[in-house]
Structures are given as C-alpha cells and as structure tokens.
C-alpha cells in the first residue's frame, strides 16, 4: 500500500503514514479551523489501510499544539486505527509530550481511556 505523505504548514502537521511498514507519524502543529478538510484524506487513506493492515501498526504522535477542531479529528483518526484491534492486529501508540507539559499528557491519557487503546506517554528527549 502506498505512503500517505503530507508536508507540514504553520498550522497543519506533517503526516507520514507508511502502509508497507505500518509506521505512522504525525507531528507539528494541528491548528486549522478547517481541521476536517485537512484530515479527510487521512481518514480515506486509513479506511483503505484497515482493509489490508500490517500485523503491527505503530503510531507516533508528536504535536506541539492542537486546536479543538483537530481534537475531534484525532479522535476519529484513532477510532479507525483502533478498529484494527478487532482484527487481532497489534497497535502501538507513542504519544510524545514536552517536559512538564501536563495538558498534553492529560490529552493522551484521555484519548487512551476513550478509545480503550493503550497509549505510551513519552517525554521528548528522554530515552
């Protein structure tokens, strides 16, 4: 399956989803007021990916800021990825945060609970 590669802008994140390896990366700012328009191609790509997924999918999320419009889209994105659990596929989510960033930690924990999907919370710069 092809890559999904979207370059970052000042308010939209870098997206690099590799369908062959199952390594998904999203990083940067996600602050567009039209977040759904940005994430729609991501949803479409994931809808195809889940039809023939890898045994293991790793999702690395490293966002500096995300607005509430993006928060909804991130939930929808993870709902699609989380559906892989029903197919007995392994999902690893690494949710990165800056040192002392309590809100980003709380957001990661909240998504994890809402989705029933374990998130590994990882401080940036630590091994």
């Amino acid at each position, binding site marked *: 399956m092809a890559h999904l590669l979207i370059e970052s802008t000042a308010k939209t994140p870098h997206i690099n989803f590799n369908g062959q390896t199952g390594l998904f990366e999203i990083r940067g700012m996600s602050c567009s*007021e*039209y977040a759904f328009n940005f994430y729609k191609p991501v949803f479409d790509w994931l809808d195809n990916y889940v039809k023939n997924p890898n045994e293991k999918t790793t999702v690395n999320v490293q966002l500096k*800021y995300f607005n*509430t419009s993006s928060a909804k889209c991130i939930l*929808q994105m993870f709902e699609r990825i989380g559906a892989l659990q029903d197919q007995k596929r392994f999902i690893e989510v690494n949710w990165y945060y800056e040192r002392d960033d309590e809100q980003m930690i709380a957001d990661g924990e909240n998504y994890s609970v809402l989705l029933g999907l374990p998130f590994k919370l990882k401080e940036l710069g630590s091994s």
Partner: protein
Amino acid sequence: MSKYDLPVSHVPVFKAMSPGSILLKYQGSVTTEVIDSLLAIVLYRLECIEQNINVRKKIYSILMECAQNICLHVDHVIEPDLDTSSGYLSLESSLGGYQIISANFVHNTRKKRLTDMLECINAQKTNDDLKKLYNEVMANKIFGARGGGGLGLIDVARKSTGKLNYSMDTINNHYSFFTLNVAIKKY
C-alpha cells in the same frame, strides 16, 4: 511629566511597552490570514516571556480558540454603520496571570445557540463535569459549515480560571455584540 521625564502624550505608549502589560491588542477586519498572523506573533512572544509551559500553552490555546471563534461569526456583509467583519482580540499580562478579551458581532439568528452553549458550560459544577461535556461533544463528529466543532468554548472554560465571563448586547434587528473575558492565573 512622568518620573521618566517623558512627554505626557508618550506615557500611554511607554506603559504599554512596560513588563506586565499588553501582549496583543487588535481591532479591525478579521480574516483567517489576520488571525494566523496575530497567533504567530503571540506564539513567539509567549515563548520569550512565559517560562511555565503549562501557562504558556493554556494562553495560546485559549487565544487560538477565541480567535477562531471570532472567525466563525464575522460576516462580510454590508450593514449601515456596522462593520460586521471586524473583531477585537487582546491579551494582557499582570502579576497574577493573564486576561484575554475577544469581541465580535454575532448575527441574531446565531445568538441563542451561542448563549445556550455558554450557559451550559457555566452550569458545569466541576472540572470533571466540563471534561465529560468536552468528551461528549468531541465524540459527536459534527462540524459546522464554517469548520467549528462546538468544542472551542468548552476548552476555553477547561483551561481558564473561573466561569466564562461574557456579555451579549443587541445592536439592531440583525446583530448583537458578543464579548468574552477570560482569566488565566499563573499559579
């Protein structure tokens, strides 16, 4: 003359440039491009002046939601004696924290929905209640025609101090004037 020997007319400018004062004050036509520019300036200034990452991120997030909320409501229609495309956004710091004020015209057809939402948010008794409301709206998959997901004001309430302080004043048969005043404590 002030104790700094400035001409009286320069004192307001000097005060505005002093620490613990205005970080942003904008009044004028609101477009996505204007908002993006203002937010970029504030992001840079906050990185310079606010060392606490949690306070910094709260301020930026709230300001962003307020700014994008203005964008949701501005109309580019001709109304006698009323510039419905204009809005107001300010960020000021003080010893104890920060204050964000946003203001804009709201078409009367959207007024009740907005005030109902604000009242619903202010009726939440605890942060856990706000979080529950936030999660309910986050999961509803509804987006407005102008991109809003209905979460912005809930998030502002979660990240600010106290209830949302707002006013909604009727201007004429078509428009009201909405002002939101948000406080963020440093400690």
